[in-house]
């Protein structure tokens, strides 16, 4: 009972907030609705017994990716009227993409329902491989069965990361004010950095 109720609650909220992502007038509101959608999707993951995926979803998507979205969107100066103007122009394209997605969904679920698919994993819901904790199961699959694919994905991410850094890195001229040299700052000591002067009354100080 509670599970069914929770499922409908999460599912309805995912759909409603996904709709609000594209309906909201303010882009910051869109991102916040997107976050709600992520969060409820994590709730659905918990319901199917994949609590590890749910936690990762919240940590990675809600806790890091969406924060960066929000960060960027908040600082953008977006002209709402201009954004709306493109709607009619892009409408046919949007419909086309939606139809393709729908067709793929129907095809995929239809093929799965036909039941002749050999997926190479036990069918049915969440068959644990090692013990009953799905953290251990995911670890076993990732690091034992698919270790090369996993490391390959890791290397691709590393290359993407280095690429992003190379593209945005600019060398600042040495000695510019924005270049902080922590080592130099830490080496300063009061004896060298400050001078005590005791000027006579009426006389200035020479620096």
């Amino acid at each position: 009972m509670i599970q069914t109720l929770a499922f409908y609650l999460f599912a309805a909220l995912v759909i409603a907030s996904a709709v609000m992502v594209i309906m909201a007038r303010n882009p910051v509101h869109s991102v916040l609705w997107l976050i709600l959608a992520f969060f409820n999707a994590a709730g659905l993951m918990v319901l199917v017994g994949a609590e590890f995926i749910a936690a990762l979803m919240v940590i990675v998507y809600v806790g890091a990716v969406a924060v960066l979205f929000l960060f960027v969107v908040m600082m953008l100066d977006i002209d709402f009227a201009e954004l709306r103007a493109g709607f009619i122009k892009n409408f046919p394209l949007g419909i086309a993409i939606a139809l393709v997605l729908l067709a793929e969904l129907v095809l995929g679920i239809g093929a799965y329902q036909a039941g002749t698919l050999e997926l190479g994993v036990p069918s049915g819901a969440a068959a644990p491989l090692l013990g009953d904790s799905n953290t251990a199961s995911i670890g076993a699959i990732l690091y034992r069965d698919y270790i090369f694919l996993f490391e390959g994905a890791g290397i691709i991410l590393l290359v993407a990361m280095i690429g992003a850094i190379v593209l945005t890195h600019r060398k600042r001229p040495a000695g510019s004010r924005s270049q902080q040299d922590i080592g130099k700052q830490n080496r300063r000591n009061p004896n060298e950095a400050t001078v005590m002067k005791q000027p006579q009354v009426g006389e200035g100080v020479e620096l």
Partner: protein
Amino acid sequence: MTEFFQSLGMTYELAWFTATIAGILLIAFPLMAAVAMVIYVDRKVWAAINLRRGPNVVGPFGLLQSFADGIKVFLQETIIPSAANKGIFLLAPIITFTVALAAWAVVPFSAEAVLADINIGLLYILAISSLSVYGVVMSGWASNSKYPFFSAMRAAAQMISYEVSIGFIVVCVVLFAGTFNLNDIVRAQEGFGLGVINAYIVHPLLFPMWVMFFISCLAETQRVPFDLTEAESELVAGYQTEYSSMSFALFWLGEYANILLMCILNALLFFGGWLPPIDWAPLYAVPGIVWLLLKTFFFFFLFSWVMATVPRYRYDQLMRLGWKVFLPISLGFVVVISGYLMATGHYG
């Protein structure tokens, strides 16, 4: 507790539901009282270090000061700036407060006293605490004012930076314990140090991890020396500038609940949680919750101590510490600790 309500003649579902609600209230109300008291402790410790008296007027030794403050903010008017984004402006403190409370669901106060004994407890805490940045960012943006906005930008960058290293440090502990369940992590520490000391901290590979964890906790909860989000000499009061009355108080309560959570996490992950410090039979006669609270308040004292003595970091120093010092060191320690555990046959 479910069995108790079932014995009163309830069906299982109803008994479970009632037991959960009762459990939530049993955590939330003492937590709020504890928050009020640690705010008092914080001010007293701070005052003592500054050679002042601190709150000493309301109640004996000023003990009721926080409650008086609570009543005061409750009676004030909630002011919403006319240019603010109203919905998000009001939602932000509620999110901060809710998130600060939600994380306590998986905290084991003793071997049995835990609301949700789930096997990803530690990940749950990481997930929930990664949400607390939204309260700050949303309030900063919705206030439609310069200082809160600067504060929100700083908070977003700061909290993400330190979450990364907290994640790696936590992985080190998980490698030793072999589980994400907080209760099992505590149990794994029983007799860890030479069969006598119940704490991970004694291990030479985990001690530096704890030092980094403690500093990251300071940064994550935006305490001095990392309180750049509310740096009063630069940003008025940061993201809280436009807030008043209860909406301000919710930030305040949420902030201290988060600090207590980080203190209790220090105790659970590195100092043996509800286990007595030494594995000696008579010490087990003391209830586990007493040990846990003693350790937690010790860490809270450390937090206050730091607050009273350390000057604020510059923002570039903060970023450098997070990304150029903590991240590489913690990443390196994950590799070293995995290698050590494989070599000693401790795990895998």
